[in-house]
């Protein structure tokens, strides 16, 4: 082969990108430390929001005692002492934050038991519910999205879109109650309407009772994920490099696999993260509806009883899940985006 152009002309228009070095650990550590730092900062601000929203906006003692507030001043005084209401709110906040960090979560106002004991098992139960829902939801949503994208603009796609929009609009309690009416009470009688694992046994020991809660969560979340994934698939399929791949003679199945999916992964990760965090909120209603022994049902009860210590801890748990999931999603997105990846090491 003949050299038609002198190679050195390339350096004349050299790209801003530096030559690729062996994977450098340091920039990654710095970057990761920054991300962790941001996550901790966010959580700290979250703790302020939680504390002041629960403890500083209303009158906790009045909320706890309800009608008894006016009639028994001695109970008011006792509660005020127990909650350290005589101290300024700032010092109460730091005392609470210190306890949170050292594992001393305080005691329930409603029954006096340590909060850690009350919520520990329930966190596990809720985690199981969310994870099972996610495991079912992700393949379903991606499958629907790919089916829809492959039939874009045709009848199949139109019907799927309409069903997805309809489902996406329904609040989760509407979905849940309709499912209960359909499968448990009114039409069929095949599945239990509430979680029936008694005697402290974990709810999954009666798998039948898990079906409806999981199904409700899946129906509440999958349409949204499917629509986002479909949109990003279509965007990639319309892009110039996919068009060029076709013009180069690449078979359509390889186009979808090598080119489209690879570039649609990142939006997929982002939307899954968003929805996992959203599931953490969805369980509040779903657990209450199905009397599932998780943190959601517990939260509703504690709010009703004005049980501050429990509400505060549960809110922090949910916020931590959100922050953690987002951190993981950010890291994964970076790993799957060459441009972002090389930006860190340069």
């Amino acid at each position, binding site marked *: 082969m003949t050299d*038609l152009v002198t*190679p050195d002309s390339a350096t004349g228009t050299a790209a801003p990108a530096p030559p690729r070095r062996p994977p450098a650990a340091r920039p990654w550590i710095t970057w990761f430390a920054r991300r962790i730092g941001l996550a901790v900062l966010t959580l700290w601000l979250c703790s302020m929001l939680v504390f002041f929203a629960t403890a500083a906006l209303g009158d906790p003692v009045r909320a706890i005692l309800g009608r008894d507030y006016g009639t028994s001043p001695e109970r008011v005084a006792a509660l005020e002492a127990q909650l350290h209401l005589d101290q300024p709110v700032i010092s109460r906040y730091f005392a609470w934050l210190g306890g949170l960090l050292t594992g001393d979560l305080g005691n329930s106002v409603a029954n006096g038991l340590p909060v850690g004991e009350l919520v520990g098992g329930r966190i596990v139960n809720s985690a199981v519910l969310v994870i099972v829902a996610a495991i079912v939801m992700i393949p379903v949503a991606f499958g629907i999205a790919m089916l829809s994208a492959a039939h874009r603009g045709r009848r199949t796609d139109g019907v799927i879109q309409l069903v997805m929009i309809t489902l996406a609009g329904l609040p989760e309690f509407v979905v849940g109650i309709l499912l209960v009416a359909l499968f448990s009470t009114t039409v069929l009688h095949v599945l239990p309407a509430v979680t029936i694992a008694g005697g402290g046994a974990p709810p999954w020991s009666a798998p039948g009772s898990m079906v409806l809660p999981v199904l409700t969560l899946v129906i509440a979340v999958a349409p949204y994920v499917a629509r986002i994934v479909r949109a990003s698939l279509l965007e990639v399929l319309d892009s110039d490099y996919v068009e060029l791949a076709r013009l180069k003679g*690449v078979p359509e199945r390889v186009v979808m696999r090598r080119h489209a999916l690879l570039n649609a992964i990142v939006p997929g990760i982002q939307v899954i993260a968003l929805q996992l965090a959203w599931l953490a909120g969805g369980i509040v209603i779903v657990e209450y509806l199905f009397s599932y022994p998780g943190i959601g049902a517990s939260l509703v009860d504690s709010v009703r009883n004005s049980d501050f210590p429990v509400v505060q801890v549960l809110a922090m748990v949910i916020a931590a899940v959100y922050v953690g999931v987002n951190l993981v999603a950010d890291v994964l997105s970076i790993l799957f985006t060459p441009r972002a990846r090389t930006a860190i090491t340069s």
Partner: protein
Amino acid sequence: MTTTTEAGCVLSDLRVALTGSDVDVVDEISIELRPGEVVGLVGESGSGKTTAGTALLGYARHGAVIERGTLLFEGQDVLALPWERVREIRGRKIAYVPQDPGAALNPAIRIGRQIVELLELHGIGTPAERLDGARAGLREVGLPDDDEFLARYPHQLSGGQVQRVALAMAFLPRPKVLVLDEPTTGLDVTTQGMVLRTMAALCRSYRVAALYVTHDLAVVANIADRVAVMYAGRIIELGSRERMFSQPAHPYTRALLDAIPHLGHARALTGIPGSTPGPGRRPSGCRFHDRCEYVQDRCAQVDPPDVEVGPDHAAKCVRIGEIGHWDIDRGNVADTDPAKKRDIILTVEDLRVSYGRKEVVHGVGFDVGKAEVVALVGESGSGKTTISRCVGGLHAQWSGELTFEGRPLGKGSRARSVEDRKRIQYIFQNPYLSLNPRRTIAQIVARPMELFGIAKGKAARDRVVELLDAVALGPGVLELRTDRLSGGERQRVAIARALAAEPDLLVCDEITSALDVSVQGSIVALLEELRQTRGISMLFVTHDLALVRSIAARVQVLHAGAVVESGFVVEVLDSPQQEYTKRLIGNSPTVG
């Protein structure tokens, strides 16, 4: 003369239409591509040139379909082949280089891998040979072939490098036919020159039949052997390069040539009124008749056939032979005389601009005289737009001295007096972004008058009508929003808005670069008229040296944030002193 036995291809009577309608995107396209020859397919936006180009690969974009036509290639009709066979030919025998190579390379896959995959796909060689092939291909286009380069991602390459990777990928399977779709759009002239030379050399040494699709007549004048001019979905003239530029036969080709500036002499540019009609809005008969200066009644009725006007040269016009000869020099005018006395209104001294810690403009100084056009010319990254934004008050972080009529200018518009804000007006590059789509033309043009207390209510409205008339727009557009206007009309509105403030200095930032060349011609003519009748000075930012020759009296050649050379246009362009200026002039494609 269907010489299909030799490689190359013949496209005949192609028609591409919008799916499910009888609206054509292109129609009656016939063109022969011969081995070792580059055919330039030239057209303005909306002409259908890209559609015609990709049809050579048996491909139509989503929403369009190839309705009719044959493509004879190696003894068979590619357009009639089953889908699987077309795919085998694509890329391997008929290759394509896209418009925006950056967007066309998969961002998630390394360069080397993408090239090897291409060879794998066509089943060429063993794995070791493929890697060697990839390296050889990169060497051919003048790129490094080491492992480090192969492991880069597309975003780690410069625009010119990406374009050369795309070229290498197109040539690697040794195609017989190559379609290049404006592959140098967005590249600087030096890079563009390099890519064009590489492409032409590869085409000739491998005897590839190439179709070069572009809007740029000057590029075609430098690389093509034959030139086809498209208008509104049809090829209206086709001939050898020499004949097309010396004896164009079609009124559209002639008008197009009248609109382009030459590097060699100043010209009084003229535009073509109106704009190219898109699919579905094209007139009957000759599709150019509604904009043609030679139009007769029959032009609207008769679909003009191809008329042979010379050897290998045909045009679609019923009046050929009746409209006289054309001379490439007919628009030439004299350059501005360097001896002319100048009356300075703007002085820039030691202007420095930094983005963050990085200084991007290093102590630039120049001045602008009354009723004078000064051009700032340079490649991307030269700082020309940054300088113009400082003058226009859009950029506030700079140091140095800007003096306007003896008064120092503040940094940024909010630091300037009302008077200064009024008398210096800025016109933006892209008229699709510089006009608020939610306001009517009347509101847009009247606003500076209200703001500066020039006129109000009825008086303002009368002035708007006057100004629109001055920029050749009728009062019919007053109540329209910008989405109803073409690019050229929008830029006229932007100019009218600037004039509404009664400025003494217009800062024009590449204001014709987003427009078709025929529209650019009429905008340049308008600016020249405004300069003469209103005595307005202009700071004209551009990357196009040929345009500088036709519009400016003085020029500052910028490179990497510093003035390399400056002076009267005639001096700088005819006898450049600096190496950089010489290289820039040498790489600028030009007709004259």
